[in-house]
């Protein structure tokens, strides 16, 4: 029986009138991976903040290895032995691997850094992760996201962390990197640490975790060993209702050709992408991160410089500016809601209408009342949960933000919707809504290009799936002719058939 390293009992926290956590009790045991599951807004991030010392609980006790644990801040939590690996990595891109790992905990003598000692400790940590291949002196900014994550984990190891919390660690990793990460987590677990693993991906959780805790509306909705719990069990715990179908089917049929690319090439990627897209069709794009899927969409939108090739939309060849492409009927939902997709500090109404203000303007002057009615209409249609259309986007949950981003391309009446990882980092319920929306759009005669790293959803939603690797669009086949394995081998550049 593994011992409980971290124990939280009856932890509660309110922000103003909002109850973020109510009497949450859980324990993380050494040598075990505990999965923390919940929709956005279920209280996961508040729990994280309490663990990291960023906020202190109103009530409740925490114990770490038998001693009272009440961190005053992230540094004190780290010193006590709780390390966090966040979704957005916290590294200084210009500093070398060694310097990043030792940042804030430099080994020093009289203020002078003991470089040899530091290198030795970092090397030992990397050894523990079986990643001695990482060059110690390379600036972290030049590493891949996966390797940067290794640096973060090494940082936790150097502080002798007893508990490591991973917050959505795989959201920007490829399948291949995920397996490497899992191997590292297993090693950590075997060395007796307690791992708390937060994720939306149930398949991943099943693969890596031993036990699970489901949070809903700030309380524990259920917990137990993963062996024996079905996916449907967990999902219904998360959403509090039976999810009959995650992937709703709305019948849609393909019509005439709407979009065609001929040898579209960008600066680095894509390389000579050729494809045709019909009305009423959902085309999935798969591939590893960095395969050029995002670049393909950005070149289509003329956001990135186009080197060569032709883009025809409904037979016309629009000019190479984002404005012209929007007028021709393209609409892009960016993969990055925070820095590109939405202006976080502006209102829902503004974000929803930026790409099409003409209906509300006369000689450049806006009719704000008219616009508000229209925006509220869209919010209702897409079920955006917000206090009002004037609420700032940054105060919305990830799922609602994504709905606003999608509402924008629908509002601009795009014929071809380019959705770049639209379901990343959002809760299951919203995912199902977005799948339904995509199918409905196809049924209305629109065309959708759906980029995703999640094979299951691609295979379930798309009519055809294309796979990209190293900037090239390798192959497009009907979804029924793909399997997760064949997509992966195509994405890795291993041709399955030869």
């Amino acid at each position, binding site marked *: 029986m593994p011992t409980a390293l971290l124990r939280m009992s009856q932890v509660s926290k309110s*922000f*103003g009138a909002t109850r973020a956590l109510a009497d949450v009790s859980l324990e993380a045991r050494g040598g075990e991976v505990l999965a923390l599951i919940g929709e956005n807004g279920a209280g996961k991030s508040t729990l994280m903040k309490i663990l990291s010392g960023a906020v202190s609980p109103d009530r409740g006790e925490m114990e770490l290895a038998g001693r009272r644990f009440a961190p005053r801040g992230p540094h004190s939590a780290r010193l006590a032995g709780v390390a966090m690996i966040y979704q957005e990595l916290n590294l200084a891109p210009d500093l070398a691997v060694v310097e990043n790992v030792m940042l804030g905990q430099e080994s020093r003598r009289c203020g002078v850094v003991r470089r040899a000692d530091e290198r030795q400790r970092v090397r030992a940590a990397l050894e523990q992760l079986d990643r001695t291949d990482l060059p110690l002196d390379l600036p972290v900014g030049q590493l891949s996201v996966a390797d940067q994550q290794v640096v973060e984990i090494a940082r936790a190891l150097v502080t002798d962390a007893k508990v490591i919390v991973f917050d959505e660690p795989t959201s920007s990793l490829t399948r291949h990197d995920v397996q490497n990460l899992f191997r590292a987590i297993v090693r950590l677990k075997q060395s007796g640490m307690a791992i708390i693993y937060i994720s939306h991906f149930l398949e991943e959780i099943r693969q890596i975790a031993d036990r699970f805790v489901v949070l809903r509306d700030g309380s524990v909705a259920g917990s137990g060993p993963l062996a024996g719990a079905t996916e449907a069990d967990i999902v219904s715990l998360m959403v509090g209702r039976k999810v009959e179908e995650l992937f709703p089917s709305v019948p849609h049929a393909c019509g005439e050709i709407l979009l065609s690319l001929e040898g579209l090439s960008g600066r680095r990627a894509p390389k000579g992408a050729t494809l045709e897209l019909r009305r009423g069709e959902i085309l999935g794009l798969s591939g590893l991160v960095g395969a050029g899927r995002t670049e393909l969409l950005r070149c289509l*939108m003329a*956001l990135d410089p186009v080197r060569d090739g032709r883009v025809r939309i409904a037979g016309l060849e629009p000019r190479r*500016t*984002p*404005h012209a*492409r*929007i*007028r021709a009927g393209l609409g*892009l939902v*960016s993969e990055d809601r925070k*820095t*590109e*997709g*939405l*202006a*976080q*500090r*502006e209102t829902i109404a*503004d*974000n929803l*209408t*930026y*790409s099409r*203000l003409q209906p509300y*303007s006369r000689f*450049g*002057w*806006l009719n*704000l009342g008219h616009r*508000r*009615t229209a925006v*509220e209409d869209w919010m*209702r249609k897409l079920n955006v949960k917000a*206090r*009002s*259309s*004037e*609420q700032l986007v*940054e*105060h919305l949950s990830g799922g609602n933000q994504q709905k606003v981003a999608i509402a*924008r391309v629908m509002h601009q009446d795009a014929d071809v919707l380019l959705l770049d990882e639209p379901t990343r980092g959002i809760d299951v319920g919203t995912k199902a809504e977005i799948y339904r929306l995509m199918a409905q759009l196809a049924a209305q005669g629109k065309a959708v290009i759906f980029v995703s790293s999640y094979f299951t959803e691609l295979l379930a939603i798309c009519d055809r799936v294309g796979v990209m690797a190293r900037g090239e669009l390798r192959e497009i086949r009907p979804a029924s002719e793909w399997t997760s394995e064949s997509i992966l081998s195509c994405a890795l550049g291993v041709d399955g058939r030869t």
Partner: protein
Amino acid sequence: MGETAAKLGLARRGGDFLRNVLGPFLALVVVVSIFWIADSMQADGGRFATLRNAQNILVQSATVGVAALGMTLIIISGGIDLSAGTAMALSATSLAWFLREQYSPAVSVAAGIAVGCLCGCANGMLISLLRIVPFIVTLGTMTIYLGLAKIVGDNTMVRPLPDQVPLWMKQLLSPRVEYEWMVFAPGVWLLLVMALVTAAVLRYTVFGRYVFAVGSNEATARLCGINVPLVRIAVYTISGFFVGVAGLYQFTRLTVGDPTSGTGKELPIIAAVVIGGGSLSGGRGSILGTLTGALIMQVISSGCTSLRLPNPIQEIIIGCIIIAAVTIDQFRQRRQAV
């Protein structure tokens, strides 16, 4: 449901109004009260709370106020203009030069303002076309405009003859009002009208939305098909127009065109916007806040003068106010975020 949502929307905007406008305004009230009380406690006090003093303060803050209107647009769009001070002096010097060379006042004023617009337009073009950050571009043009002003002024002040300066120009910002019904100098009223128009443009036009969008998140603006370089050039050109008008104001107060009179003036202009709630990272700022910010600074310096506090003390107090204003603003934002 729609109705309640609309009501909440109003309440929400009410909250914004409180935060963005009433915040700086409250600071103004506090500052005024402090000096009023301090002044009336003095043995020979009683000079602070007079119409005369109010007229003075408004007239003295008008020049910075006009230029700060443009700076508000620039700062909302995520930029900065360090050349505002020297560009203002350049347009004032040009205006004086045209007057001295026997051009009609109307032509001279138009030329002065046009010079301001050109300065702004040049800033916008350099930023958009060379893709250099506004701080660096305007740091460069700041010196360029100073040099140009010295060329126009032949390295000294440009002094039109007294009869070459029309009466209306002399009265534009004279603290003593010609007609009593005007209460405040015509230049103050002109500033108010321009401020109202600018505020309306920011709030009720497509262009205004685009200015906020570009400052809030340039990548999003591009994604939405907004022509970011064009918006930016327009913002700097409009700001150049206000700088030109500020040059006119400056000239009417000095009645000479002094090429160096604008050096360092960009700082109170930027400070007015920042005290008024503008964020140097873009996306936030308001015209009313900016005007309040300009007033706060002038009230402090006039108040200190009437209390016979020395100049260095005034400067220290204004510096503290700038830091305090931004601190309070951040604090308020943080509370709102939770």
